């Protein structure tokens, strides 16, 4: 699933490690989500949306698989 995670993270000057700590997953998990090869669970998608103060749809694009 395509997503804007990398851009959103870059806008806030957060490292992958820092974002991972904010949502409670490893840096490797963030890398895998950013590559678009690993889709996060619904709870993790909500956490990501919360830390970026956006909706899930604004971060993830389900139509662009």
């Amino acid at each position: 699933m395509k997503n804007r995670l990398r851009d959103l993270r870059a806008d806030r000057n957060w490292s992958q490690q820092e974002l991972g700590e904010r949502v409670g997953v490893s840096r490797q998990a963030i890398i895998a989500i950013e590559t678009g090869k690993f889709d996060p669970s619904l709870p993790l998608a909500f956490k990501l949306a919360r830390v970026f103060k956006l909706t899930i749809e604004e971060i993830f694009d389900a139509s662009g698989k």
Partner: protein
Amino acid sequence: MPAPNDLLRKNVRTFYAFLGSVALLGVGPIIAIRLIEGGTQWGRIAAVTIAMISWIPWIVVVIGMIRRGDEFALRVHLVGLAIAFFGLMTVLAALDWLARARFIATPDLAFVWPVGLLLWFIGIMSANHYYQRQS
């Protein structure tokens, strides 16, 4: 999320538990082989029991380590275990048929665990590489 000190303590505990379980895994078969060499019926029963029980701590520690991982770590382990399982089944089936067709002697099953662990390791590394690779 646990505090860094708690996390460190937990990781250190897990590390020592892992080392302990590996030590038991090494000691168990040594005792078992000595008991088998003794040749008595009860000695052989004890050998099998001890050899099998020595795996339990290691299995418990490894399952605990996997369960503590985040959802990505669980996915990587799932792929790794699937590769190990189906890889091992393929190797066993191939050896079984080769033995049935009398191309080879019945193989020593001691290879099952090391090959399974090797396939698991390869599976984890491959899955991790796939998910982390930029493309």
